[in-house]
């Protein structure tokens, strides 16, 4: 028996125990779990020959024996404080994949807005059968399948048609470990009805110097003429693995934006899929990753223009230092008949050291003939002319480098329209860059 088969066996065994446990959940959900597990067993973990994982070695993740994180664990006060919630809006805290009633506060009740523990929502709302695990469908990665098989809870955000929620909804996913390598499966389901509108900020955090795995799936359904702005702040601990799937399905004239900020984890992978299932949809995918040491961050995005007259805008920027690795793979698919598609994709990377490396692969797959598509990718170092210009005025070299690095990242930071999030990222940048505090105000 190969090592890989043994790995899937361990997951299968724990799934059998999990499936046998007495949980009250609808039968459709049980079936979906079983199917997801079957797909995982059939496919196994991806290896180096798997194109989508070619530059992302996951052997350490596959080898580690993760045990389920304690569902009853509580984060300490510092951790909760460090989540950096703004005072604005409802907040949800998911600890080890469980909705924490104690730490969450939905704020005043609002007509048409339901923010619920996912497990409870699935048990009580039969209509969610049409949404959970449907978006992620067949193209799901094995990690997404594992999440479908094992995730018991998380957050559900349900917006009735015509509802607008002004304040952003914060969903913080926290992992609390007891020292053993643990895994938490956490899931967020957003269903925004016709003409509804909201902003969601998901953040991920956990202890430094602990090996753990967060497996997260976020599914977003945006109804006709609806709008969802999704933000993700990934600041897992330095030794953490973070594997996440985001899928958005857009109906006619729907708008969706995702801003992904990746700051933590030793290895992080984001799989993002946007599907235009109606005409006239718009989506924005923005991302910023900041990695150093021997860490790796990987984003695979797929924007599927199924229907005509949709537009997508994607901008990803990476800042890599020391021996860090980055992977960006952005695929835009324009299906036959998706005429008047307007798609634009850019990836820009800044390498701060000679040993940092990024694999950037923008891809277009166009089967329609009346479309406007553009993509590009640049990877470079700090512009020596700009560096000399700043130094020639009296700015020290280290500060000049920080200033230029900050300038590179800042156009994405400025696009974060949730003040508390923008400030958290800004604080991180300043702490990360040498002399960051001194150059603070020189940022245009």
């Amino acid at each position, binding site marked *: 028996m190969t090592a890989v088969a043994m790995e899937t066996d361990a997951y299968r065994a724990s799934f059998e125990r999990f499936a046998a446990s007495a949980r009250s959940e609808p039968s459709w959900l049980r079936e979906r779990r079983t199917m997801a597990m079957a797909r995982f067993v059939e496919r196994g973990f991806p290896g180096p020959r798997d194109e989508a994982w070619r530059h992302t070695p996951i052997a350490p993740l596959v080898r580690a024996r993760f045990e389920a994180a304690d569902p009853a664990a509580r984060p300490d006060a510092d951790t909760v404080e460090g989540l950096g919630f703004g005072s604005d809006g409802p907040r949800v805290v998911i600890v080890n994949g469980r909705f924490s009633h104690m730490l969450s506060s939905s704020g005043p009740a609002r007509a048409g807005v339901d923010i619920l523990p996912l497990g409870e929502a699935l048990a009580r709302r039969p209509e969610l059968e049409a949404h959970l695990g449907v978006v992620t469908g067949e193209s799901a990665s094995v990690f997404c399948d594992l999440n479908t098989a094992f995730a018991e809870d998380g957050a559900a955000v349900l917006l009735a048609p015509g509802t607008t929620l002004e304040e952003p909804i914060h969903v913080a996913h926290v992992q609390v470990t007891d020292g053993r390598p643990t895994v938490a499966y956490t899931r967020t389901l957003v269903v925004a009805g016709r003409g509804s509108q909201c902003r969601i900020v998901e953040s991920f955090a956990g202890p430094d110097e602990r090996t753990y795995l967060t497996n997260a799936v976020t599914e977003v359904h945006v109804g006709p003429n609806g709008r969802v702005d999704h933000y993700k702040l990934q600041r897992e601990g330095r030794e953490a693995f973070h594997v996440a799937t985001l899928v958005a399905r857009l109906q006619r004239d729907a708008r969706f934006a995702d801003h992904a900020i990746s700051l933590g984890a030793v290895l992080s992978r984001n799989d993002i899929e946007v599907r235009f299932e109606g005409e006239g949809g718009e989506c924005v995918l923005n991302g910023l990753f900041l990695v150093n040491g021997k860490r790796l961050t990987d984003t695979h995005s797929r924007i599927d223009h199924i229907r005509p007259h949709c537009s997508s805008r994607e901008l990803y920027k990476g800042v890599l230092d020391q021996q860090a690795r980055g992977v960006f793979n952005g695929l835009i698919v324009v299906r036959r008949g998706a005429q008047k598609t307007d798609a634009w994709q850019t990836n820009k990377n800044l390498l701060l050291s000679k040993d940092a490396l990024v694999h950037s692969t923008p891809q277009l797959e166009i089967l329609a003939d009346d479309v406007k598509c553009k993509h590009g990718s640049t990877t470079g170092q700090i512009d020596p002319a700009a560096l000399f210009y700043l130094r020639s005025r009296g700015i020290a070299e280290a500060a000049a480098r920080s200033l230029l690095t900050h300038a590179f990242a800042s156009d994405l930071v400025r696009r974060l329209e949730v003040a508390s999030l923008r400030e958290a990222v800004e604080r991180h940048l300043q702490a990360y860059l040498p002399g960051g505090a001194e150059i603070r*105000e020189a940022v245009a």
Partner: protein
Amino acid sequence: MLEIQNLHAKAGDTDVLRGVDLTVRAGEVHAIMGPNGSGKSTLAHVLAGRPGYTVTQGRVLYRGRDLLALAPEERAREGVFLAFQYPVEIPGVSNVYFLKAALNAIRKHRGEPELDAVDFLGIVREKAQLVDIDEALVKRAVNEGFSGGEKKRNEIFQMAVLEPTLAILDETDSGLDIDALRIVASGVNRLRRPERAMVVVTHYQRLLNYIVPDFVHVLVEGRIVRSGGKEMAFELDERGYTWLEKEPAPVGRGQS
């Protein structure tokens, strides 16, 4: 203030400066003229410390110190300023605030107290008027989307704020129409001080109608082949540079 002695320098692998001698004293304005490729800009860059050049012989003393041993930012803090021929656009970096950081670095180096935002913005207002530049413009990102003339004016504005001891103006007139040239030159003239020296690098005599130099030097093939007073510029304008390219002996400084 500035003593350049037998300066030889390479740009990459090419010998560009082949023995430049020049002495500049406080209060003087020296014009360096010469044909394309004569080494004018290289001289300006070497003095400011731009990477990419190798000094192979000679030395440069600035106020008695070895200028070439200093990093670019240390030269700036010691009072050296280069007005760039091609000012760099730096999106995302605020012009005034980077200038505030620069001015405070210089003040700190001199042992002077750092300026707060209010004091600094007072200086910005005053200097913007002095060089006739729109205050809104200087608060934008460094040179981003500026016209050619605006970039050059911004250079002079930065010079006005930083108050250098030695200002090197590299082809500040290039690409300017006559109105822009007049504005830039009058800004420079207002910054002339008895304690400040200027080295004005230019290809055309035209600039020297507005910034009247004390001395004019002609650089040909990396050497100063002729030095004279301001009237020499007119001669160069009429006769061009070719007749000088045969001149033998390099000459140090002007006729004083």
